[in-house]
């Protein structure tokens, strides 16, 4: 199991997820710092992400878009608050208009990433996200919900397969 802990606080609308990887911290940092790697994990498989610009320095911005199955292209950006390679990254994750400018009608999410070596080539990464409102959360989930959908289909397939075995 890669994910080692999840803490959720419905009262303060925050979540911390912790994972461990079989790699040094520099390698885990590359997942964030290399735009070509970032776009391979940020979007769900049926909403792949394309990074349009990438400046991971404090005050810098990362701009991306995702491409959906219907050709829809939701856009987003990160405003980098703090970056200390390969240890920590703080950014505000927001939604962008079609022209790439920040959509100020929607609130953003603050995310804090902490990366630390835990010995023997293993690295712990924790991500804390704080949501300002349900609206922000709904929007974020609307972009990521396809994952859950795919999982649900996988579960249905598994159940159907079991039924067939039972009937045979």
């Amino acid at each position: 199991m890669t994910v080692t802990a999840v803490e959720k606080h419905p009262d303060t609308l925050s979540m911390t997820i912790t994972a461990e990887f079989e790699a040094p911290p520099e390698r885990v940092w590359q997942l964030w710092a290399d735009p070509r790697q970032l776009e391979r994990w940020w979007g769900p498989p049926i909403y792949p992400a394309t990074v349009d610009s990438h400046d991971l320095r404090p005050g810098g911005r990362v701009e991306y878009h995702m491409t959906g199955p219907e050709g829809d292209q939701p856009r987003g950006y990160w405003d980098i608050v703090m970056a200390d390679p390969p240890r920590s990254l703080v950014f505000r994750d927001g939604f962008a208009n079609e022209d790439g400018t920040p959509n100020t009608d929607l609130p953003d999410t603050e995310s804090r990433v902490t990366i630390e070596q835990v010995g023997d080539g293993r690295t712990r990464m924790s991500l804390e996200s704080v949501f300002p409102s349900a609206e922000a959360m709904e929007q974020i989930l609307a972009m990521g919900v396809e994952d859950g959908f795919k999982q649900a289909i996988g579960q249905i397939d598994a159940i159907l397969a079991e039924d067939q075995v039972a009937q045979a």
Partner: protein
Amino acid sequence: MATALDMDRVFAALADATRRDIVVRAIAGGEGVAELASHYPMSFAAVQKHVAVLERAGVVTKQRFGRRKVVRTDIEGLRVAQRLLDRYEELWRGRIDRMTVLIQDIRDTKEAKP
């Protein structure tokens, strides 16, 4: 199932520290608005307003016990917030799974090279 409107109300209701404190106190469900008000350096009317916001969001309900009305936390309201966080957790579990595969892929490629 709660609607999106309900969720917005729940989150707006819980965005305030005093209201969160009221929610915690009202889990026991033994106090009325007057008793709750005695815990805070604000007027009865102000506390009554906070309770009303929580009530509209469905986070607390007022229940009658004999002649008294007590404020009680409705756990279902908090469950809505919990469900949203559950979905966010799934989103990040998916991302972390892809990170793990990516680290493994690139290491395999390097090791395959002579």
